[in-house]
């Protein structure tokens, strides 16, 4: 009886795209002098690498079409004191936001986990989570391959 929804689209690009973005962000990291010098503590490097991983994942998979990737990129840009400009989305913006108030306690933990989850309706939250899970697993695979490749030597 429900309105005929189009099937949920959670397509994720191939591993190559993730690898490309990640390696690129790593090379950008390389170029920072602070990164290579030995007085950079391991913790900082870890944090930078982690942030690079997330940002590259967001760019590779979602671009600006996904709510979570937009939130992630915005958050990262804020940390660098930069401003991210997003083009206007094609789909209608969340005019359903008023129905969000109905049960926001429903999936609160999930909202806290997912970047940008606080502003979504529950059904949209589920969709974004599915895409996020796919992208995360892809990113994990890429990083695992990289680590294996580097440490196997």
């Amino acid at each position, binding site marked *: 009886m429900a309105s005929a929804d189009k099937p949920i689209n959670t397509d994720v690009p191939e591993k190559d795209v993730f690898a490309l973005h990640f390696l690129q962000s790593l090379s950008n990291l390389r170029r920072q002098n602070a990164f290579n010098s030995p007085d950079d503590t391991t913790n900082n490097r870890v944090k930078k690498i*982690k942030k690079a991983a997330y940002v590259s994942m967001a760019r590779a998979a979602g671009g600006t079409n996904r709510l979570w990737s937009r939130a992630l990129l915005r958050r990262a840009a804020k940390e660098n004191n930069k401003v991210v400009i997003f083009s206007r989305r094609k789909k209608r913006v969340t005019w359903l936001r008023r129905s969000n108030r109905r049960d926001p306690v429903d999936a609160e933990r999930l909202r806290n986990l997912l970047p940008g989850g606080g502003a979504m309706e529950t059904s949209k939250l589920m969709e974004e989570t599915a895409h996020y899970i796919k992208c995360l697993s892809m990113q994990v695979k890429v990083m695992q391959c990289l680590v294996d490749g580097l440490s196997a030597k």
Partner: protein
Amino acid sequence: MMMMNGEATEAELFLNCADMSVLERQRAHLNHHHYPGFFSNSSTINGGDIDGFLASAGLDLPAVYGYTTVHGDARISVTPGNITTESGNFKKRKFGCVETETKVCNEKKKMMMMMMNREAAVEEEEEEEKSKVTEQSNKSIMMMKMKNKAKKEQNSCSNDSSKVTKDSQRTDYIHVRARRGQATDSHSIAERARREKISERMKFLQDLVPGCDKITGKAGMLDEIINYVQSLQRQVEFLSMKLATVSPRLDFNIDDIFAKEVVSAPMTNLPNTVMPPHMMVNSGYPHEMVDSGYVHFNPMQQVVASSDPLSCFNNLYSSLGV
């Protein structure tokens, strides 16, 4: 007065006639104010249907007018002026908005509920006489009928004539409707649609998260999903730690490797490839690399011959290339 076609002139003759019934005058009004295009879309409107619904709902004539020409606005009060604009908008809506069609249908559904609410309020006195025993059954019957109607409405949203026929059907069993079901129905139907959406997404997620087949129920599924997302995030963190310790090995020039690997390893073109060419240009790759390496699909499987710094990436790309 607008003189549009032969029918209109006849209507005018009607109007000038002294002993015209209210019904005929209204019909003349209706004919008078609709555009000819409206008729050509749905020829049955001009025929018996108008008589049918005008006759059966003589009491609620203004309300039903607004009903037939509703297309998604919240205008309930109707004047003949309204009808012209709305019928004009009918044609507009046909041409296009496929994306907003469901939205319009949903709004129309709500509109219909609201309309029925109002009509129910009007006919309340008549129904108090009916026995309370039949109320329940009527409610359920009416809800089912409303559901079916909503479904039919969705399927034929842009079909004007079917809408008018549905109007006449609807006015038939407005009389048997109970009052109590009304206020909650529009909400409950919307709620049910929303819940179905959520459960559909939950099922999708269930396939995605490994080891979730046995778990039923929303709460358990949510916990599983949250655990999975957390474990993935922890994995990313762990791997980035490992990379931080290993990364001193990446002390050769990544850019060269990158460019060579891009040319040699097969890369697929993807929908999100708007960014990477820009990024590659910005980070200083030679331009021919950008053009040839990324855009063209290089069938060469063979990776560049391994000098030491490159060999670690051989494994990487062979494992990724699968």
